[in-house]
């Protein structure tokens, strides 16, 4: 392997903490961010410890003011289905909530940093996703949710703690698997005020975020090769970027740069505003209907697939706020963790309020090592699989593995060559025997058996030849890959990525962006007013009125978004399908008759043409 000179490397025997410091990231936040990575101890001390039992009852295990790290990990047997959780903010009365919100506003004024959303997620998403978003928002009336005042109180409490303990903490872990040295940087936040602070999808008490760096050893040196940044609950190849990927990886003095989403704290490789979607849970039958419809809609009618159950959201990773990292005024204070740290391995509960949200968005996360249900977390136990690296060998091993595979296939090719020759001889001999049996009625049985044997052998031979041909192509591919590896050439750094998460183009604007935003903000409410008006004034025409109003709203939306042609096409197509169905119901006999006549005439014309030569 050629040495890689343009990146920071570390001797293989570097102590873990030093290794973590050498590659620790620089994290940029968005202006208006409210909480930053902090130590767990001060947080836990402010919490109460509770249990939610399967019968719906709640139990206070340790009241607020008496918590400690020791009490957090005390063994407490519990029934199946019990959820243990910390609660940072105790329930607030109406008066307390109002005071907290006023104090939060005062704190923001004092800090002087405000978040301005720009083109909001609703204007970016379109009318149908907005309908789904409306349903999603209304679902908070039924689902559990974290009150906005709790998030405000968490922000105030965090700021109070920060005054005494201003350091920024990451929990670093070093683990070695399958030839890779994995550096994990875990960040703990007091809250995730994404919904209440940044128009996001959810709020929850506490937040655990993480990035992983993957190093390989060559000539006694550890060389960084990949980085994977955790972003929401995504995992796999799409999360991973190669260290030398200049379009995706931003570096500052050899340290990888992370752009944190405002409120969500999701980690991104590039600065910007990320538009993404949360898929709402839907029953299997509905998913099957949507899938069938999309197949017809896209393959037969050539339209865009329908994604009505996707709620759009925007993650703002603008990097115009605080910078934490080496070579700056806000350095990291690292803490080394592994399975021997009791709070890491022995506390399987949630690190904040269990909001009883069935789809979990508002429930606090569990710690680095566990999922919300207490099972081991993939990104901790299988950091390679988390980033899709479990199938990728470290570069120095790649050549060796490829050479071994190549040798194995070459050996098999030699074997195949001999086998094919042998089978060809046998097949020809059997063919001659078969020929000899012809004209001898008393050998009918043997003839049939011989014929069967020949068919079987011919099939075997065909398979062997197929394998031989495929192996030739495989060997050629291996040779090309080996040549590239030996010369130090690398694949396209995005070759493994199926969906490259890219920020929106900052220069891109909607056609009438102000009008579109205003429309996005009011359209859903207007639709509800129209429905109310229809029910009250024209109850006989509710369904027709609703359909007309929906079409009208969709068309207005399309004009504002510059998508009038596409929208008119699909709206008309849907109407035509409904009309076609009605026509079929009323005239199905005539339609079938006409179709048969047309087919008959066309077939007759074809045949008569053929006859005429």
């Amino acid at each position, binding site marked *: 392997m050629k040495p890689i000179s343009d990146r920071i490397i570390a001797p293989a025997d570097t102590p873990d903490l030093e290794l973590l410091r050498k590659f620790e990231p620089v994290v940029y936040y968005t202006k208006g961010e409210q909480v930053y990575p902090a130590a767990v101890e001060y947080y836990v001390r402010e919490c109460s410890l509770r249990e939610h039992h399967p019968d719906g009852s709640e139990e206070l295990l340790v009241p607020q003011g008496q918590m400690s790290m020791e009490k957090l990990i005390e063994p407490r047997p519990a029934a199946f289905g019990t959820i243990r959780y910390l609660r940072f903010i105790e329930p607030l009365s109406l008066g307390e909530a109002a005071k907290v919100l006023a104090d939060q506003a005062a704190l923001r004024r004092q800090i002087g940093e405000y978040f301005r959303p720009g083109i909001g997620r609703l204007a970016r998403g379109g009318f149908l996703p907005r309908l789904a978003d409306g349903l999603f928002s209304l679902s908070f009336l039924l689902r559990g949710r974290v009150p906005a005042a709790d998030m405000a109180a968490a922000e105030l409490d965090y700021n109070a703690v920060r005054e005494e303990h201003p350091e920024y903490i990451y929990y670093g872990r070093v683990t070695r698997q399958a030839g890779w040295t994995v550096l994990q940087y875990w960040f703990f936040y007091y809250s995730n005020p994404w919904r209440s602070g940044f128009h996001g999808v959810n709020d929850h008490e506490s937040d655990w975020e993480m990035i992983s760096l993957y190093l390989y050893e060559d000539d006694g040196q550890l060389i960084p090769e990949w980085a994977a940044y955790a972003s929401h609950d995504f995992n796999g190849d799409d999360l991973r970027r190669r260290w030398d990927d200049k379009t995706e990886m931003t570096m500052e003095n050899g340290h990888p740069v992370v752009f944190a989403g405002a409120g969500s704290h999701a980690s991104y490789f590039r600065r910007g505003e990320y538009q993404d979607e949360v898929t709402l849970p839907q029953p299997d039958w509905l998913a099957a209907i949507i899938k069938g419809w999309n197949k017809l809609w896209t393959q037969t*009618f050539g339209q865009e697939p329908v994604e009505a159950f996707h709620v759009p959201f925007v993650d703002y990773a603008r990097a115009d706020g605080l910078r934490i990292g080496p070579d700056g005024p806000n350095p990291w204070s690292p803490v080394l963790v592994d399975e021997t740290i009791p709070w890491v391995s022995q506390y399987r509960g949630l690190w904040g309020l269990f909001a009883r949200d069935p789809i979990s968005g508002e429930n606090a996360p569990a710690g680095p090592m566990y999922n919300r249900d207490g099972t081991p977390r993939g990104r901790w136990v299988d950091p390679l699989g988390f980033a899709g690296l479990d199938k990728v060998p470290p570069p120095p091993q790649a050549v060796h593995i490829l050479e071994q595979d190549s040798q194995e296939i070459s050996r098999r090719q030699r074997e195949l060559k001999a086998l094919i020759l042998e089978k060809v001889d046998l097949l020809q001999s059997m063919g001659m025997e078969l020929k000899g049996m012809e004209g001898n009625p008393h050998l009918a049985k043997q003839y049939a058996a011989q014929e069967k044997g020949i068919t079987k052998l011919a099939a075997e031979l065909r398979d062997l030849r197929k394998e031989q041909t495929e192996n030739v192509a495989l060997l050629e591919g291996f040779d090309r890959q080996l040549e590239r590896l030996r010369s130090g050439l690398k694949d396209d750094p995005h070759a493994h990525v199926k969906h490259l998460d890219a920020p929106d183009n900052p220069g891109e604007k909607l056609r009438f962006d102000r009008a579109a935003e205003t429309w996005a903000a009011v359209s859903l409410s207007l639709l509800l007013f129209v429905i109310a008006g229809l029910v009250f004034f024209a109850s006989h025409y509710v369904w027709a009125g609703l359909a007309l109003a929906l079409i009208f709203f969709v068309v207005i939306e399309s004009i504002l978004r510059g998508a009038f042609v596409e929208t008119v096409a699909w709206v008309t197509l849907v109407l035509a399908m409904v009309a076609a169905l009605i026509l079929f119901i*009323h005239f199905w006999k005539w339609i079938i008759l006409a179709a048969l006549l047309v087919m008959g005439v066309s077939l007759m014309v074809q045949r008569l043409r053929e006859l005429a030569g």
Partner: protein
Amino acid sequence: MPRRKKSDKKKSPIAVSVIAVTIVVLFLIRLYQVYEPLIRHNFFKNGIGGPLFNGWSLTPLGSDLLSSVSYLLLSLAGIFVLIGFLRLQSWSWVLLMSWTGISLVISLVDYFYSHANYAVMASNVIIAFSLNLPGVQRVFNIRRDDEAHI
């Protein structure tokens, strides 16, 4: 053998002819809808033989006259669109699709709330499906070959 000359002209798919014929059929239906109420009220013999308004609402004559005028406008719009369509203009595709959409809405509302006009409905269905064909969209520059959708 002499080489066959290749025409530079854009070839229009057969669906374009189908659409054009359907527009003519629709035009004739609409024309009938223009004349039928006028004949019923002896408009051509007697002119406007009664009041059009009864207070704020229309009289039956007023209502029929209004629908005649609306259908006349629709028919004229159809002719205008047809000319653009036969000249393969992009705007005529958009206009025709919008026109068909509006016409389908009226047909469906009629179907559910008063009398259905199946001939108009069928014509609109044929036009809508034909306009959506990739070949038709390409010839009107609505869909390009490098696009998966319009």
